[in-house]
């Protein structure tokens, strides 16, 4: 994936509104007990990550709140991972999804995080602690984030509680695919909308998938399974032979010119849809918001098979020590202090301690974004633009409902090495 920033994101004209929003956040934060210390010397924390969380508005607000200096280096996810794995001294904090944890941890690029230094540890919800957002919810196949959280004595990672964790749980969401309603008739969430649409013959040549085996592979696997083309014994742990079968099917589709492309960044996925290159593709939620903002009627499907879940991770570089490390902890704590959670909520993401974010959201916002209720009135996004019209309902419903329907997590499977080979053959 490339390091291209979100195109719909924060452009210069919208800074003013962001500042206003930020201002509100500051006031609220000051009204609250601010536990973090303002360092006398300004330390610079280098953050390596993707555009999902490395947003200028967040940086501005954090610098203001913390009195530290932040250097954001947003890049494509592959590049980010590679860089972090090869050169831990090139960053202080790493922000990506949970499927990078194994790579980073076992390559020794990150160090354990002390729970006791995390101000809001206790507020973090069950999703990352137990794997279930609520007792009735399914865990979801693959590497559920809770399985990688705790650092064990033997320096392996597991769900067994310890005082050290491999990442700070914060931003997360469920993904699916988006489709253009100008071409595809809107379906019914959880009922007719299906991953199988990605392999519908009628959309031949107008389909795109994200170019990442840990993500796109599951989209395609779910699609193949939904189409009844094959079955997986455990979709979170696909075997080599299953991969062979899957890619045999997929290459047939490819031969027929079914796939128009494989996107590597959110803006690219936006462009694919906007330029009519595709009518259906696997998507991340900001792309959907962006397209809707540009009057491209795209629905983010709530597939009846369930979502592909992902969890953001914030990791501490193994090379970071001393005051910079303290500042890094401050930044981690800031992320859970409410304002950032509210900020990203308006972009459709969830935070691990939603109750604190709730304080920074209007009731209508909370109801829409977290409760899955119809919007009481028009809601504006972080860019100050109208993002949700009155009475609109979020596809997939509430936070609980959505996370109760995770079919599979973005996962680095044991067959990952093989999948890379197959993926290469598939996309080349």
């Amino acid at each position, binding site marked *: 994936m490339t390091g291209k920033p979100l195109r719909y994101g924060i452009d210069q004209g919208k800074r003013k509104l962001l500042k206003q929003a930020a201002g509100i956040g500051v006031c609220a934060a000051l009204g609250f007990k601010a536990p973090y210390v303002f360092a006398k010397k300004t330390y610079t924390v280098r953050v390596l990550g993707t555009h999902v969380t490395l947003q200028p508005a967040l940086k501005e607000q954090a610098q203001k709140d913390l009195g530290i200096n932040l250097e954001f280096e947003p890049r494509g996810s*592959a590049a980010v991972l*590679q*860089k972090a*794995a090869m050169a831990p001294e090139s960053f202080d904090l790493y922000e990506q999804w949970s499927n990078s944890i194994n790579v980073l941890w076992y390559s*020794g690029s990150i160090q354990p995080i002390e729970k006791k230094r995390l101000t809001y540890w206790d507020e973090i919800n069950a999703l990352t602690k137990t794997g279930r957002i609520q007792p009735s919810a399914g865990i979801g196949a693959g590497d559920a984030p809770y399985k990688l959280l705790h650092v064990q004595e033997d320096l392996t990672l597991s769900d067994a509680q310890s005082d050290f964790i491999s990442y700070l749980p914060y931003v997360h969401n469920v993904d699916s695919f988006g489709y253009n309603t100008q071409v595809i008739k809107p379906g019914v969430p959880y009922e007719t909308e299906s991953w199988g649409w990605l392999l519908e013959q009628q959309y031949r040549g107008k389909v795109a998938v994200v170019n990442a085996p840990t993500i796109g592979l599951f989209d395609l696997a779910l699609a193949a399974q939904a189409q009844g083309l094959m079955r997986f014994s455990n979709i979170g742990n696909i075997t*080599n032979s299953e991969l062979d079968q899957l890619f045999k099917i997929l290459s047939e589709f490819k031969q027929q010119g079914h796939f128009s492309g494989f996107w590597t960044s959110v803006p690219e996925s936006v462009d694919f849809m906007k330029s009519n290159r595709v009518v259906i593709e696997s998507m991340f939620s900001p792309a959907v918001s962006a397209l809707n903002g540009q009057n491209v009627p795209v629905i983010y499907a709530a597939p009846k098979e369930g979502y592909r879940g992902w969890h953001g991770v914030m990791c501490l570089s193994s090379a970071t020590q001393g005051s910079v490390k303290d500042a890094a902890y401050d930044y981690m704590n800031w992320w859970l202090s409410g304002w950032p959670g509210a900020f990203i909520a308006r972009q459709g993401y969830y935070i691990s301690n939603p109750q604190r974010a709730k304080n920074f959201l209007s009731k209508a916002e909370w109801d829409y974004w977290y409760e899955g209720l119809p919007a009481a009135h028009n809601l504006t996004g972080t860019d100050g633009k109208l993002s949700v019209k009155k009475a609109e309902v979020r596809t997939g419903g509430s936070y609980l409902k959505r996370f109760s329907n995770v079919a599979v997590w973005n996962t680095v499977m044991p067959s990952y090495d*093989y999948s*890379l080979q197959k993926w290469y053959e598939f*996309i*080349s």
Partner: protein
Amino acid sequence: MSFYRSLTFQLSLGLLCIGALILTSAYLTNVSYQLLEQRDDEIASAAQLAETGYLLESSVIDLQRNVLIYKQSASVAAINRSNELIEKIQAALAEINQASYRSEEAVDMVTRMQNHLTDYKENLLVAVNGREKRQALYQNDLLVLINAAQKDINNEQGVEGKTAASLQLTKAHNAVLAYLMTQNAAHVKEFNQHMSTIRAQFAKRPIASQFNAISMSFRRLHQTIRGYLYLTNVVLPGTANEILHLSSRLRVYEEQGMQAKLVKAKEVTSSLQARSELFILLSIVLVVIYAAFLIIRVISPIRSLTALFKRLSNNLHVEHIPYLKREDEIGQLSVAASVFHNKNLQTNDLLERTKELVIEQKELNKELEVKRNEAEQATVSKSLFLANMSHEIRTPMNGIIGLVELLKGSNLAAEQQECIDKISYSSGVLLAVINDILDFSKIEAGKLDIEEKEFALGKMLDNVLASVSLRAAEKNLYFRCISPVGLTHLVGDEVRITQIILNLCNNAIKFTALGGVELRISVNDSATGEIILNIDVEDTGIGMTQEHQNDVFEQFSQADVSTSRRFGGTGLGLAIVKQLCELMNGSVSVHSQKDKGSTFSVFLRLKHATERAQHKLPEGQPFAISILTCNRSNKTTQILASYLKANKCVINYLNIKELSEKKQQDKSCCMLLLLDHEMSQQLTISDIALLQRDNVDLCVVLDKRDSVLLTRVGISKDILVLEMPFTYGTFYSQICKLFKYDSGGEQALAESEITLNLQGRVLLVEDNAVNQMVAEKLLSSLGLETDIAEDGRQAVDKLSNTPYAYDLIFMDVQMPVMDGFSATLFIRNELKLETPICGLSANAMSEDFDKAIAHGMDNFITKPIAMDKLKAVLEQYLG
């Protein structure tokens, strides 16, 4: 006329329209060609871009191939080739970006490709590094650890199954190698199984940590390989695919664009063609309309108007003038023609009237001629009248003066004598006034001629002094004269110069009551070789204001009316002086102070005379002289001294007291006695006696007024007397007598003293009885026998009868029956008589003299006949 209706405007507008059309056409053509050119460029550019798109596509495919080769063989050549290809693609993209005609879409595609390429390059580098790291991890870390562990297993003491453990480790190693070959997760699993078996076996032994290290090392290697594979299998091909996709899209896009542009270019060309044809058509139509307009509205009216003007210029009759109602230039021309026409009519009228006027003018001229003749006649009459009046007035005046002169000579009682003197004086004044008036009239009429004759300056001055000194004496004023020493003769009009001096002197005397008048004559050589005669007349009279000085030379001007009343006179004197001066190329000016006196200065340009008398005592002889005076510094003494010094005389000043001493020293001497009132009182009888002794040559100098002093002091009358005023000439002759020096001038003086002894018979031709009588008396008083003829005829008759009966003829000029000139001519031409004839005339004018000579007269004297002049004539012809 409104500007918009003028032809200028209309024609200009037409031209402007045509011009604008042509310009627009040219402009549009130009623009079109530019457009076409641009379109061509765009097409070329699009073709170029499409070609570049092909290049890009092939390059990207090549790149992917090379990366694959690298992935398989880690070939350095392949990676170098890959980098070269990346550079090539970058260059191609930059080229597209710099193309002149790029659509936004193309730019967007290129930008995206560039971004992808940057990512690709970066990721390729990372991948290459990852592969190197993989090698390093295996060679330097894992392999070392495994070998060390093998060794340590062998060295381990007291443990069962060392061989089995070693085998396990070897198997694990094999699993690593297998994984490195195939990247199959099964081998990882296998490795882990082997390792956990070993770890179980050596649990709680120090060596266990080594196995942990081996596991961790492999895990690290495993993750590194995964990262590397992720890049090479997912990221790089994904990026390459996108670049490929975009480049093919770009190519297609540019090809389509090129096609579209080609079509459009064709359309543009054909529309251009159509448009230019339209413009040509439009231009032709416009030109035709313009030409028609020109012919109808301009040329044909001008032609007819030209014909009209031709008629008008030939002054032919014109019935009707067209186009008068038009408001443009043609209309103006018609108006001009109409004006021309009207002017023609007016000119004809004018001509008629002029003819009439000329006739009137001629009549007027005739009248004018008559009037002028009349005026000329009147002038002639006036002149004649003036001449007659002159004659008529002078003739009786002559009679009166002549008779009075005669009476003076007869034995009369003292009382009668006094009366006669007064009559004489009055007559003189009257004559002078008459002469003044006549002179002035003549000058005014420009009939006064200036003579240029040699004259003796001294003699002229003597005459003047004789006249003015008397007058001065009458008023008891002193009169002094200072005259030039060296010069005796000049060339000029003696009469007029005399007149000037007389007028100025008389004037001075007239306006002076106390003191006196000084006349200074001096001569200077001018730069042009002429002689400047400077006459100054200074008086101690009433003087004049500056204002009066300015117009004193105007005619009839006296200081004021009261002045005129007080001093009398015609007021013509100074005016005559001025005019005479101007006639003689001279000037007159006055310097005066009120109540102090005036000085009149005259400058005249005269010529040198050929005759020059030596009026100086010879040098070298000691002429010593004593001057007996009471006051050495008085004016008279100074004049005398200056004259004497000019003659190089040795002067010895004496007063009365010194006289006796002087006499005793010198036996004989010459002495000038300055006898004035003071002196007369100081002189004693003994002094007189002393002076009148034989050895004293005495000359008494005294003022004319004081002649009585002579008798009073008892000086005998026969003594040598120099009366003041005197000229240098007089002084010189007296001083010569004193020094007993014989000078030429003495002779003349002696002659005048000789009593005339005349004999002969005189014929007096005179019509006026009184004048007959006066002349007869004068002549008979001189002892001459006189016969009278009443007029020229009688004279001629008498002379015919007795041609030799007369020795001299006095012939009046103006006479009835036959005038003097005619008679003279007759006598000379018919009778052939040589008898001297002397003209007589009351006309004192010089042309009369010339005329007389021209008619054959021998001499000419004016009436009234002055005795001395008569004597001179008689002396000449009868002596």
